[in-house]
């Protein structure tokens, strides 16, 4: 009996020891694609090099006929079957879309400030007031407010993409990915931060 106990104990002990940690690596390429799509939506296509084509959705459609007796199968979910679960970053959710729409409409106001250099892109995926000398005194708080709101939305966006994809811990990686993509998608003449100093595209 005690031998049996010992045996089971050892086996479970071995099982514990041999417990393998599975790392889910951050899908960097997919995140970049996702970031580019969002940036295109927010900034408009002119600053975007190549929009990624949407994979065609397959509509499987079959209706089963009554099979036997009075039993009947009528329902077939014609809803498109979702693509196989590859390493992917999904960015289509009502929350993300709401943020995107908000950022897009704010961009109409921010664009002039990017062009004039009053606002620049930081290397952590946010924006900041860079040079206000050309901005009228009465408009400075309006600009500060735009920047504060934009950063609030950006932070919420990075967190939401990480959460929506089931990995809240990816938030920093998402933010870093976006930081790079905002800068590389920026239009000519815009300012961005690199290694603590400002550069112009």
């Amino acid at each position, binding site marked *: 009996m005690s031998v049996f106990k010992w045996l089971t104990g050892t086996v479970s002990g071995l099982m514990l020891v041999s417990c393998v940690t599975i790392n889910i690596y951050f899908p960097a390429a997919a995140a970049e694609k996702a970031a580019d799509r969002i940036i295109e939506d927010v900034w408009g296509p002119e600053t975007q090099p190549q929009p990624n084509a949407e994979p065609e959705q397959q509509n*499987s459609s*079959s*209706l*089963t006929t*009554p099979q036997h*007796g*009075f*039993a*009947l*199968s*009528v*329902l*077939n*979910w*014609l*809803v*498109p*079957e*979702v693509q196989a679960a590859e390493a992917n970053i*999904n960015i*289509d*959710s*009502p*929350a993300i879309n*709401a*943020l995107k729409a*908000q950022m897009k409409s704010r961009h109409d106001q921010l664009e002039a400030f990017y062009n004039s250099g009053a606002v620049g892109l930081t290397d952590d995926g946010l924006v900041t007031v860079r*040079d*206000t*000398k050309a901005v009228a*005194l*009465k408009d*400075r*708080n309006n600009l*500060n*407010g735009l920047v*504060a*709101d934009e*950063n*609030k*939305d950006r*932070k*919420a*966006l990075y*967190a*939401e993409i990480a*959460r*929506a*994809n*089931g990995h809240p811990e990816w938030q920093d990686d998402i933010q870093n990915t976006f930081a790079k993509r905002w800068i590389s998608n920026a239009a000519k003449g815009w300012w961005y931060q690199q290694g603590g100093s400002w550069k112009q595209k």
Partner: protein
Amino acid sequence: MRSLMARTALLCCLLLWMAPLQAIDSIELRLGQWTWTDYQGRELALQLTLGETGIELNAQAEHITFPTPIGETHDIYLHCTDLRFTEGSWVCPSGTVRFTHADLGRQQLQFSFKANTEKQHYEIQLGGVKLAEGKLNVDLSYQTSAWELALDADDLSLQGLTPWLPRFLSSEQQEALALWSYDGRLSGSGQLTGKAESLKKLTLNWQLNQLNFSNDSGTQVAEQLALGGKLDGQQQQSAWLWQTTLHGEQGQAYFEPVFLDMSAFPLALDARGTARDNFAEIEITKLKVEQQSVISMEGSLTLKDAKPVSMQLSSQPAAMAMLYEHWLQPFTLGTAVAKLDAQGQVAASLDWKPSGYQLALDFAGLGVKDEAERYELQGLTGKLGWSTTEVPMATDLAWEKAQLYAISLGEASVKARSQSSQLLLEQTVDLPVLDGRLQLSAFELQQQKSGVNWSFEGLLTPISMESLSEALGWPILHGKLSGVIPKVSYAEQQLNIAGALQMKVFDGTTVIRNLRMTSPFGSLPQLYANIDINDLDLASLTQAFDFGRISGRLEGYVRDLRLSNWKPVQFDASLATPKTNPGKRRISQRAVDNLTQIGGGPSGMLQRGFLQFFEDFSYQKLGLSCRLQNEVCEMNGIEDAEQGYYIVKGGGGLPPWINVVGYTRRVDWSDLIARLIAVRDSSGPVIE
């Protein structure tokens, strides 16, 4: 100052020396080199000519070095037509002097003087000093070490004064000033009275026009300001008594984040007080600041070594709309209170010391409404007290109505006490919530370094589901919502609700637990909850949603629910008929049809075969589960079928039986929602 006196002394000295020469018509004197105390001269020529009323004096020098701050002057020419000696005084009622100075440039001044060496009484007037693109008149009177100086400056340029500043400022002050760019025009007059080297009394009237300044980073900027002011001071024993006014009526300034538009909202300051210990201790006994149409404050302030050690301030009732726009909103950018419509009045009083402060705010008919319509508070009247010290401050507030997202809250009052950065409720608050009430007790609020956190205990007396569903824009549900909430707490952007909310709907109970919210007023509010659903009556449920008719009971759960921006984005939900308590289970043709439609199948299928003659069917069990993650719903039914799963399994009563089988396990959530909405909006199939 000293130099002016010294100059007077020098002139007198020269004149005295000339006195015995009066009998001669004209005398000329030339000196190659000449030194006297701090003065040095070169190529000095002096000519005195006797006239009818006095002596005509002409003096020239190639170079004279005066003590600082005047320094070196060249090509000096001095002329006095009518130098006289009367009543023991040398008098020159009118003269001119020309010279070139490194900083002042070429100057031509009018002067007059009167000098009595015996009585040590000197008076000198200098007019038309060209200084910094403007003009300066100087009037000096000196008698046995007591002196009076009157200055009159007209339109001096601040830029032009810059070269003079190093003579008056320390190197630290100069470094600080070098970070600023500025220009402007200064005019004004001043009277200074003193004895020997100390100033006893002064009066200054000044006006700065077209003032522009900016620091390096552009965070402190002024454009086209017009500022004026007056400063009076006099020394009494060891202290200075002073009084000053300042007013700004034109231009704009920005001191991040505050924007001051002086043209639209003129600013005025009035202060008086004392200064002791060589200005190390400054007491402002009366301070009055007014920004027209915005705020008016009075108070007092004590500074030691340029640091405030105590301050009392109280404001007149101010219009909240103006106060918010000018002084509150700039500090709240990016927060939940950054965009408000404010109205009503507020008055504030503050008693501050480095160790802590007491603040009292008096509200009258205050209303704030979030522009994003997340919250609203109207008709707030009473006093809010906040103390970071041991001195308690009372709060007694009442409001007429409030709104939190879609939920309207009624009239309530709060009595509380604040002490040591805490606010404690003194009696239970009875807050109307829709048609029910929330009783709040044990409310506590603390201000900590990480931010504000608060908590309370609550009891929710029943709210009708009719009013709740109406407020939330749901189909009208019948029943009650109530709950015992041991603790609601908010800290670090997270709202936790312990305990449970219970909904009595459809003859069953639905219990919401582990409710919590993060960044409730942020860009994307997140709500998390677990919901248990027990013993719902399917007949009333389907009736309420106009879904056809299904009889039987329903139970299940929604676990790990997450709403992002109030929309479900994640959950693990399962709803099914219970294993026990079968009861009578029938499903109508229309319900089958609707289920089919939701699944994307065609409607009206049943009407095409002989099954159209049956209004409803008996079923054994039904159920559906959905695990939502990343916009995809992983679906399942109550039992596996060939290649799919049963959503409805026929059986139980008499045939005909009907099975509803789903085949697709992964469903796009937005498509599913669109289909649900289509079913809700359709009138359903017509059964003939």
